[in-house]
């Protein structure tokens, strides 16, 4: 027996399903328990407990924008909540699971057309079912000299990823995936189709200029519930002549403070791509026995002790890989500039040169390239670090400073230890720098398919991390549906005016509350009243 939408009886639900079948074909409406179960979160934080928590009632798979419109109109008629997914691979952040049990998932995977790739103007227009692999292959098969910027798993959707503030690895203007979009098309909650940017002018070129005229409202479709995006344009990076990566190593733990400032400047000057921080001293989770002994002491280790240990082992405290793209002369000159600025300021800094890679590159060389996403080649390597049964990502946005990193190690480490989830972040855990304007302190909490107690503790720790982050003035940039309300409520300035303003908009444009209720922590009036 399927989980029904709230307030909908089985007779009404069956009538709605029949309408969906008439609109898009019976083959594309999935309503058996067996089929609907495939829309649960594969990294389910409720494994071993009530695994049907946040379960869909059915799924519909339209092929065209017109079919999406038909689905939305039927949903309005029957008051059926919808939950759109692109490729449904947002693992660690909810997968294809809705925020409201009983929602009908609108599975956009069949809408997998690459509408256009412009090599002259460096943009692509795609439908939501297109994956990074699909777009990459389209470009390669045609020999186009443009790069995509992809996140770690290549089977995700450029549209879906951008709409969840997903990020990548090349230059800052490309790796903020929503920031690199250039206009979109969406089906609104009333079933109308709207285009933004220059696409709002008949005959205008989607992909040219995202702002158009008047208020820019594209952000309402990000982690929101104001429509179903059916096309999106993205700026693409022209294939550079060369790529170069050099490594900087600094000796002391506190050297991270000036190192971050220099790397921030290199980033903001547009000289580097994603800087990849690491720690030779704390590498591989701090598995060095001497380090573990120091950290296990009550009160932990002092910086002087950590620095002395690192010096005895002959390893630096921190490293950062700097990535350069462009003409060969430029990448080498920019590396020289970075070396000079850092060497002038940080005593004992060391510099490990890399090699120049030139493009176009053969497929064989791409296969063995050390970090393929850095050159826009999608792959699935990231799954090597995923624990046995999956994980939840807790991803806090913190200022771009070493001080914030140090504070985060302390704040979140205490929660790990209190909840018996291991040592948590050690003094050498750095920050993710996927987004060019913020650091992300990311912790992957392991899940188990059989140990419900572990999952319950993980959920509790996750909630404690949200609260602890808010105490520091930090929030999360994306999260699994189970935590969306708590996260949104942490953005509480002036009596949660941000959420309340979104709710006002929601009630205005989606009076029946059918569009992804709960997404982004925004609920329609009728469900807010039920929860109150």
């Amino acid at each position: 027996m399927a989980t029904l939408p709230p307030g909908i009886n089985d007779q009404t639900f069956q009538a709605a399903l029949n309408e969906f079948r008439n609109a898009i074909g019976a083959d594309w409406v999935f309503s058996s328990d067996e089929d609907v179960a495939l829309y649960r979160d594969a990294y389910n934080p409720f494994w071993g407990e009530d695994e049907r928590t946040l379960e869909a009632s059915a799924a519909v798979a339209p092929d065209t924008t017109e079919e999406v419109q038909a689905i939305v109109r039927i949903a309005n008629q029957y008051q059926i909540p919808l939950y759109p997914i692109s490729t449904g691979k947002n693992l660690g952040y909810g997968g294809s699971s809705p925020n409201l049990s009983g929602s009908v998932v609108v599975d956009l995977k069949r809408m997998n057309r690459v509408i256009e790739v412009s090599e002259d103007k460096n943009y692509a227009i795609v439908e939501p079912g297109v994956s990074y692999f699909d777009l990459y292959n389209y470009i390669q098969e045609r020999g186009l000299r443009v790069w995509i910027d992809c996140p770690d798993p290549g089977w995700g959707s450029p549209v879906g990823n951008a709409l969840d503030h997903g990020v990548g690895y090349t230059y800052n203007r490309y790796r903020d995936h929503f920031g690199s979009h250039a206009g979109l098309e969406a089906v609104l909650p009333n079933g109308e189709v709207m285009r933004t940017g220059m696409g709002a002018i008949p005959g205008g070129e989607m992909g040219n200029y995202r702002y158009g005229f008047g208020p820019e409202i594209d952000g309402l479709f990000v982690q929101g519930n104001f429509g179903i995006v059916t096309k999106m344009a993205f700026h693409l990076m022209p294939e550079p002549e060369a790529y170069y990566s050099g490594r900087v190593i600094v000796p002391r733990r506190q050297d991270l403070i000036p190192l971050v400032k220099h790397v921030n400047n290199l980033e903001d000057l547009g000289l580097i791509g994603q800087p990849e921080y690491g720690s030779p001293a704390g590498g591989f989770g701090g598995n060095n026995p001497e380090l573990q002994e120091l950290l296990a002491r009550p009160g932990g280790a002092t910086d002087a002790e950590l620095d002395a240990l690192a010096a005895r082992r002959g390893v630096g405290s921190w490293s950062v890989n700097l990535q350069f793209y462009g003409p060969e002369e430029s990448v080498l000159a920019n590396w020289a500039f970075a070396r000079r600025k850092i060497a002038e300021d940080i005593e004992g800094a060391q510099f490990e040169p890399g090699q120049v890679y030139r493009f176009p590159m053969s497929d064989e060389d791409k296969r063995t390239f050390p970090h393929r996403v850095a050159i826009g080649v999608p792959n699935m390597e990231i799954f090597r670090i995923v624990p046995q049964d999956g994980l939840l990502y807790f991803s806090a946005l913190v200022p771009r400073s070493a001080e914030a990193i140090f504070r985060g190690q302390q704040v979140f480490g205490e929660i790990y230890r209190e909840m018996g989830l291991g040592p948590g972040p050690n003094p050498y855990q750095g920050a993710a720098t996927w987004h060019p304007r913020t650091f992300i302190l990311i912790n992957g909490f392991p899940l188990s398919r059989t140990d419900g107690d572990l999952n319950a503790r993980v959920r509790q720790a996750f909630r404690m991390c949200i609260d602890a982050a808010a105490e520091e003035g930090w929030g999360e940039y994306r999260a699994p549906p189970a935590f969306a309300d708590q996260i949104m409520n942490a953005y509480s300035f002036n009596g949660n005016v941000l959420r309340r303003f979104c709710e006002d908009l929601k009630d205005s444009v989606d009076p029946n509350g059918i569009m992804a209720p709960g997404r982004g922590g925004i609920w329609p009036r009728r469900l807010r009243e039920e929860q109150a």
Partner: protein
Amino acid sequence: MRVKSLSIILLASCAGIFSTAGNAQDQALVEHGSQVYDKWCRICHGEPASPIDMVGTQKLQERYQGAVPAKLEDRTNLTPEFIETIVRNGLGLMPFFRKIEVSDEDMEALQAYLTRNNPN
């Protein structure tokens, strides 16, 4: 190279003359299954290009330590039921696949492909 390719085509054609309609259908199903594998499985269960590549192949090598081939395509002991169970339920970090991704028809073809070399 051209001569060799032509020879292969001729051999295949001769073999085709004596094949039954059933075998042709089986072959088409296996070919379809190979395409399903290319689209959905090979990205993790292909030939690793480096120690961090092809996590599915690497995990199976760790699990079985060479007792069975780490590459799924080289296995001869997979059953259709086992394949369907894993694809529809996932295993460990591997998620399950929706029918919009691997349809029932795709599943049948994938089963045919991954069991094509099983002993009778």
